């Protein structure tokens, strides 16, 4: 027992970002008790400051993990600190920072703003724990933390639609985590341990009968797929994205999704069982990726609401991220990291501008954006660039990301003769063409249509637009100079 306690106190030093998040959560809660309703700018500034501190701590960890040879087990191997997890944590904190910078737009319910920022920290904590998790119990609890916070955040529009979306989200989510928990209980029955990188765990799974192993692994996978809104667990996404406040939708499309991809990468390495798995997971994943990309793109074609369109687009992007898992190699995993970083930039930029248009001019439909370029040339051009990036065309980072994923798929086809990689590659390329139709609908309206009623010219300089333009510049830079991001990703090691 003494050594366990020593391990716990020893782990605290490597757990600073998470401790900082919990402290900020509590401080925001206390700050929210004073004069709610008038101090919401103060809460935003406080939240941004806390996130900046967290970011500094995470970057500090990045330097520490640089010389780690093996993953560092913390808290008796409940979580593990690796360079991959620190990379994901940086992305999550960045996503949270941009979301908080968007502010709490709901003017009628200003007194709820401290809770809003506090819940953003709750999601962030869940994401941090999820990407580090090394134990089924930690995985389950951090997914619950992510989900419960997400249900509450969904209802923050405080209207009938967002209540309905939150209840739908809750019901789907409860069912998904119930199925996942059932699968995990089977895994425990098969192995007698919950630590997923334990020799006993892997050994038990290799010795296990094929049928229970497959059922348990698929049930657990279902819960994770739900979190990244990949098909067939995607049904909640469009309603939730449309009804939730725009910053919250942006947050959902980045942080829980990428944290889910992070744990999925690890989970696939585990259930692949060093290649001795009775199930060919590439086929399962390739099917999931194809359905996600297909459903995302084809449903988006008919959408008129910009947020709904972005929701379907995020389902398609989950498909592309899962496609990287299909290739299953170190290059592919690095391609996923690159794609995720770019996805953060372009999706956040898209939501930033959409949020601005919605808050200032009340734009929600694609038609509303008619002739935006004549009134707000800078904003119009920026939105066009973002949409091109989301499609995956040069000269944007979106192209580089898709290119890396596709070339990883091609490599996996050439090297291991994996036919499904080829099918997925062809399917993905075809879908990129389909995606052109709906992504370019918005630029078409912005550039070629004339507005009937033009919004009044007004200054568009605000913190969130500044961040948006900065992200657009980053999207362009990541195409012309991807080296610096690649250098960061290359120093990540997938030692397991």
């Amino acid at each position, binding site marked *: *027992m003494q050594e*366990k*306690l020593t391990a*716990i106190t020893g782990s605290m030093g490597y757990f600073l970002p998470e401790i900082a998040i*919990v402290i900020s*959560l509590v401080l925001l*809660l206390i700050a929210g008790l004073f004069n709610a309703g008038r101090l919401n700018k103060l809460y935003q500034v406080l939240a941004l400051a806390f996130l900046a501190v967290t970011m500094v701590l995470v970057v500090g960890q990045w330097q520490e993990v640089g010389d780690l040879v093996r993953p560092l087990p*913390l*808290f*008796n191997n*409940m*979580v593990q600190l690796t360079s991959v997890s620190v990379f994901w944590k940086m992305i999550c904190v960045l996503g949270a920072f941009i979301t908080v910078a968007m502010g709490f737009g709901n003017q*009628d*319910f200003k007194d*709820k703003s401290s*809770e809003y920022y*506090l*819940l953003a920290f*709750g999601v962030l*904590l869940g994401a941090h*724990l999820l990407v580090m998790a090394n*134990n089924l*119990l*930690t995985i389950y*609890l*951090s997914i*619950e*933390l992510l989900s*419960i*916070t997400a*249900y*509450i955040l969904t*209802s923050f529009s*405080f209207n009938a639609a967002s209540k309905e979306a939150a209840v739908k989200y809750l019901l789907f989510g409860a069912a998904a985590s119930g199925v996942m928990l059932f699968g995990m209980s*089977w895994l*425990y*029955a*098969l*192995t*007698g341990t919950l630590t997923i990188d334990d020799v*006993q765990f892997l050994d*038990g799974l290799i*010795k*296990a*009968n094929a*049928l*229970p192993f497959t*059922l348990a692994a698929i049930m657990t996978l279902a819960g994770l797929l739900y979190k990244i809104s990949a098909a067939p667990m995607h049904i909640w996404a469009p309603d939730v994205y449309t009804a939730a406040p725009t910053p919250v939708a942006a947050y959902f499309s980045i942080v829980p999704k990428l944290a889910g991809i992070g744990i999925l990468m690890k989970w696939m390495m585990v259930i692949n069982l060093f290649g001795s798995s009775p199930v060919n997971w590439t086929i399962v994943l390739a099917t999931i990726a194809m359905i996600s990309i297909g459903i995302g793109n084809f449903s988006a074609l008919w959408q008129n609401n910009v947020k709904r369109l972005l929701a379907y687009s995020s389902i398609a992007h989950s498909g592309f991220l899962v496609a990287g898992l299909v290739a299953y190699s170190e290059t592919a995993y690095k391609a996923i990291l690159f794609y995720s970083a770019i996805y953060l930039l372009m999706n956040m930029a898209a939501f930033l501008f959409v949020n601005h248009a919605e808050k200032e001019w009340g734009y929600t439909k694609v038609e509303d954006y008619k002739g935006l370029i004549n009134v707000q040339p800078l904003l119009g051009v920026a939105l066009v660039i973002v949409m091109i990036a989301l499609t995956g065309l040069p000269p944007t980072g979106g192209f580089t990301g898709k290119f890396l994923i596709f070339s990883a798929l091609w490599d996996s086809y050439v090297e291991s003769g994996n036919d499904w990689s080829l099918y997925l590659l062809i399917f993905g390329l075809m879908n990129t063409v389909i995606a052109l139709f709906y992504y370019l609908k918005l630029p078409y309206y912005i550039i070629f249509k004339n507005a009937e009623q033009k919004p009044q010219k007004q200054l568009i300089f605000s913190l969130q637009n500044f961040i948006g333009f900065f992200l657009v510049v980053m999207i362009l830079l990541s195409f012309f100079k991807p080296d610096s991001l690649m250098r960061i990703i290359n120093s990540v090691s997938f030692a397991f």
Partner: protein
Amino acid sequence: MVVLIEIPFYIFSGLAILFAGVILFTKNLLYGAFSLVGTFLCVAAIYVLAQAEFVAVTQLMVYVGGIVVLLIFGVMLTNKITDKGIITSSYNRFLGAIIAISLFVVLFYGILKINFGAVKGQSADMNNVNQIGVELLTEYLLPFEIAAVVLLIALIGSSVISGYKTKETDE
């Protein structure tokens, strides 16, 4: 000795299934809620027989004491016309039955194939509560703390959601 434990085990499992069946087939929501109490009590008894006293007590306190009472209160308070119970109906019975039965067959067959030898059995004289307390604060300290944050968030969330007033009701 083995038989002595097994007989009540099967009795309680049978009762649990019976009560669950009532929940499934009754149309009156209040009957369903009361059968839920029966199911939970039987499951608690099974936990006791499996020497998991702590889980059994938790089951009693959380489910029977909290959730079901809340459910029954909910049913009774929303049930304004006192002489009529809340009636629920089910749709797609045929399709639902097929899916449920096939799922049951697959899962049942899968469970039969599991070799439960991997799970270590605990000796009977071990003090369960004591051990859980020690483990929670050493081995499982982090999950314990995460659960604390989850509960805090849930508390804040419920107060936010229930505490908001729309403009109409404000005036």
